[in-house]
């Protein structure tokens, strides 16, 4: 508890005044010569217990009344966690979850969770009147921002809504890093979040570090301001797999459309939702019927006008509890050529790959595959390459080749590393090649492959790929952190994906599509599917129309781009890349690319984690969780002197009751019995 007039608390010793007065009173007795000692002794014997207790109670209540009066005069603040045991903080670090789910709002007041959190924290800091260093770190930028003017806090761009996914472990780590770099002294960390499971990511390895870092600091206190309630009615919209196709009737836009009802309300009843579809600024409205928690419209088709060869679109739902998931943007343009580069000197391998990669998987797209010998790395058209097969030693770190490779995967394109015939080479994201192993007499049989996701996932119809038909004879071992996709009975991993944070995937094939290495090329189905799936992943970033999630930092900060449409309201501050938007990069040039930015799908897929889960994640860390509700109106901090005055009044009242003389009992009044 903290106080606005803490100096008055030095008067607390006055609380013993009633005891002192009592003792003085005891010593100021008069002396009487008394005859009827027998009654006195009897009475004293009989009243030893209860009367003594009563007297102690009366004294305690008087002491309590004085204490309450002093506390009331010191103007205590309820919820004054800032000043809680250990004194006031020198630094306050506000960690703000700005994820899309924090935009859930109370329909009556229009106040969102993020808004409420910011306002309550501001109010609390204003009430205490303290002026510690105040630092804000938000989940979208993760950059510490020193706040000098408290009143501006709710207006800052860093506290505005975003449609990003929040990564709470990252946010906490950013806070801890700030503590490490700045000598912040006694620090209070306030984390405002809605406890959404996908944001908190309980499986993250960072929690271990967070726990140990926070537990090791005595001067740091952690407060969680949480809003775990889920909204009443919330529809969300997501689009995926948007492609422009040409049909005999004209251009069509095909997409997978997902409408989801996340609200707690019953979803049994059929509900018709007016959905507004905007294409290049032209709005149309459609009624869509909801009959369950989710409506998935795969291959939803929209006609395009004759001139609409490229452009942007938006699907909007009517306003509800959470406005941040009511809009989905998409862009479309001429389909990009799905270009595969095989960087290899091995013609057998290169031909097999080229043949598979150049064969069209979907007739409406054009495919291209090109072989470039390893001496001519400069020939690789990096900008257009969606999938690169690197059949050469890993370039040494910091070499130009390594930089180019990193840029390739960091811009979202796919890379497949093939085992080079020669030894040596550098490391790539911790990966390096090892020894070849082979068995002349026997082939290696397949033991397991990952069927739920990635290159070897089952088909959309649920049928498994014929992976077990494959045979392998020569395999190269490797070191590195990877996620296995195909394993042999001898434990060798044939297909795997490197664990890297890059947008583009890095796959490792530890065998070659050659007859003396494997039957990949001859049993061509798996081979073909794997190449095209990798190609599909990589093509997103070479296409003229691309899709990205908010918060991935795809937009250059002072970049040359134009916002075609955005979900940010007109008064809001548009932060590039943090709100759903349709954007033209390098507009009106040959190299114009369209980019649709949407909120990450994880943002509306999970509910809040419960109290035990939070306690588990922060085990060993001393923290205090303040569960708030939208529209609760409760302040984090309020003056509570009234409560102390009431306590004082109650104490005095109780004291008065205890002090009341006993009711005289007429029949036992000895005076009435005189003769």
């Amino acid at each position: 508890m903290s106080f606005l007039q803490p100096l008055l608390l030095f008067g607390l010793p006055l609380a013993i005044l009633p005891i002192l007065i009592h003792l003085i009173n005891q010593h100021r007795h008069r002396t009487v010569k008394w005859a009827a000692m027998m009654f006195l002794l009897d009475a004293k014997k009989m009243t030893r217990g209860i009367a003594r207790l009563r007297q102690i109670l009366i004294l305690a209540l008087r002491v309590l009344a004085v204490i309450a009066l002093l506390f009331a005069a010191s103007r205590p603040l309820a919820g004054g966690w800032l000043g809680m045991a250990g004194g006031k903080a020198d630094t306050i670090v506000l960690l703000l979850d700005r994820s899309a789910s924090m935009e859930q709002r109370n329909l009556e007041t229009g106040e969102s969770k993020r808004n409420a959190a910011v306002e309550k924290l501001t109010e609390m800091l204003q009430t205490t009147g303290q002026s510690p260093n105040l630092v804000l770190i938000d989940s979208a930028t993760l950059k510490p921002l020193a706040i000098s003017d408290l009143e501006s806090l709710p207006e800052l761009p860093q506290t505005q809504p975003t449609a990003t996914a929040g990564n709470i472990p990252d946010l906490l780590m950013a806070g801890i890093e700030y503590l490490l770099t700045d000598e912040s002294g006694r620090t209070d960390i306030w984390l405002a979040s809605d406890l959404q499971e996908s944001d908190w990511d309980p499986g993250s390895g960072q929690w271990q570090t967070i726990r140990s870092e926070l537990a090791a600091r005595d001067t740091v206190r952690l407060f969680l301001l949480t809003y775990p309630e889920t909204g009443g009615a919330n529809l969300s919209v997501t689009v995926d797999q948007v492609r422009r196709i040409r049909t005999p009737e004209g251009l069509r836009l095909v997409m997978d459309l997902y409408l989801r009802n996340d609200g707690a309300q019953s979803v049994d009843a059929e509900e018709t939702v007016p959905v507004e579809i905007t294409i290049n600024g032209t709005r149309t409205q459609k009624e869509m019927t909801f009959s369950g928690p989710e409506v998935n419209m795969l291959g939803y088709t929209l006609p395009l006008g004759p001139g609409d060869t490229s452009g942007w679109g938006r699907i909007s739902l009517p306003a509800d509890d959470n406005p941040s998931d009511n809009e989905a943007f998409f862009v479309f343009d001429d389909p990009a050529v799905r270009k595969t580069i095989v960087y290899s000197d091995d013609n057998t391998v290169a031909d097999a790959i080229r043949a598979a990669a150049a064969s069209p998987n979907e007739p409406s797209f054009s495919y291209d595959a090109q072989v470039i010998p390893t001496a001519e790395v400069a020939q690789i058209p990096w900008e257009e390459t969606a999938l690169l097969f690197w059949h050469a030693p890993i370039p040494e770190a910091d070499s130009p080749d390594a930089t180019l490779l990193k840029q390739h995967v960091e811009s979202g394109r796919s890379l497949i590393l093939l085992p080079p015939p020669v030894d040596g080479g550098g490391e790539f994201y911790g990966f390096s090649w090892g020894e070849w192993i082979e068995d002349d007499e026997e082939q290696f049989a397949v033991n397991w492959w990952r069927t739920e996701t990635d290159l070897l996932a089952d088909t959309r119809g649920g049928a498994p790929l014929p992976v077990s038909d494959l045979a392998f004879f020569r395999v190269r071992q490797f070191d590195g952190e990877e996620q296995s996709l195909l394993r042999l009975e001898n434990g060798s991993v044939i297909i795997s994906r490197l664990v890297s944070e890059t947008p583009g995937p890095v796959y490792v094939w530890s065998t070659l599509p050659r007859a003396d290495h494997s039957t990949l090329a001859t049993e061509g189905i798996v081979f073909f599917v794997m190449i095209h799936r990798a190609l599909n992943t990589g093509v997103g970033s070479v296409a003229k129309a691309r899709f990205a999630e908010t918060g991935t930092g795809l937009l250059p900060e002072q970049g040359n781009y134009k916002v075609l449409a955005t979900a940010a309201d007109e008064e809001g501050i548009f932060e590039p890349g943090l709100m759903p938007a349709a954007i033209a990069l390098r507009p009106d040039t040959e190299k114009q690319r369209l980019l649709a930015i949407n909120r990450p799908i994880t943002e509306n897929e999970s509910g809040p984690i419960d109290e035990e889960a939070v306690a588990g994640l922060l085990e060993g860390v001393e923290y205090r969780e303040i569960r708030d509700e939208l529209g609760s109106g409760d302040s984090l901090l309020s003056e509570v002197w009234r409560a102390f005055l009431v306590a004082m009044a109650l104490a005095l009242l109780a004291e008065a009751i205890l002090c009341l003389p006993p009711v005289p009992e007429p029949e036992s009044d000895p005076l009435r019995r005189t003769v």
Partner: protein
Amino acid sequence: MAEPIQRDFLDSAVLGKLMGLPLNSRQPMLGSVSGRHRSPIKGSALEFAQYRKYVPGDDTRRLDWRTWGRTDRYYIKEFEADTNLRLCFIIDTSGSMAYEHEGKTRLDYARSMAGTLAYLASQQGDAVGLYSGMSGDQNSAHQEIPAKRGPLHLRVLLDQIGRIEAHGETQLIGAIHEAAEKISQRALIVIVSDLLFDLAPLQEAFQHLRFRKHDVTLFHLLDREEIDFDFDRPTRFVDLEGGPSLLADPSLIQKKYREAVSQYLETVDRIVNQSAIDYHRTFLDEPYDEVLARFLTGRNPKTARSAR
């Protein structure tokens, strides 16, 4: 030279006022001389008692000739004998009798009562004696004054009443038993005490007196403060009988104190009822002449009804 004896416990105005009220006994007395009290022995008083058949040996002077004339039988006419009364005081002289009320001790009050009664009794020709409850101390030679008549004896008695002091623990029970043993003939015994001691042996002492056919009167002297216990702040109570003093907050113990007093008074009532004692609960704020007037009036068969 003997120190002069103060007689300030006697008030001539009170004496004059009470002189007209006779002191009566509730039962026949056996006096040594003729007096104004009934005797169990038939005598020659004016009041007719009974007729009895003549038997040889009776004094022929007492034959009722008128009855013989009417009935031709011999009857003896008997009259009540009037005798004098022995009035013995037993005064409690324990330390608690030194309790003061408005500048006057309980013993002073007892002195006034006993002195006045002694004077009145002496004036109507009765014998008076004194047994104070101070047996065993330095004044023991003066503690016991057998009942005698005459103004000289009255003076000795009043001197002794003026001389007694209150101190030490109570010896009243012993004094009662002693008096019961020593007073051989029926007497009116007036006990003046605060009864502030263990009441258990009291009943036996009273029974002893009753067994000796004494007429017993008890003046129970109490102060209202001792019963109400109305003190407003912590007080140190010093025991008048020499026990340890006690510091107490009256507000804390008042209730229980009153309960104890109430129980005590009930016990006193029970004892005096069972022992047929003429009991007078007397408060020190009452004028003693009023108490005595009430006492005397209550004993007069003619006025008793109206007095009560």
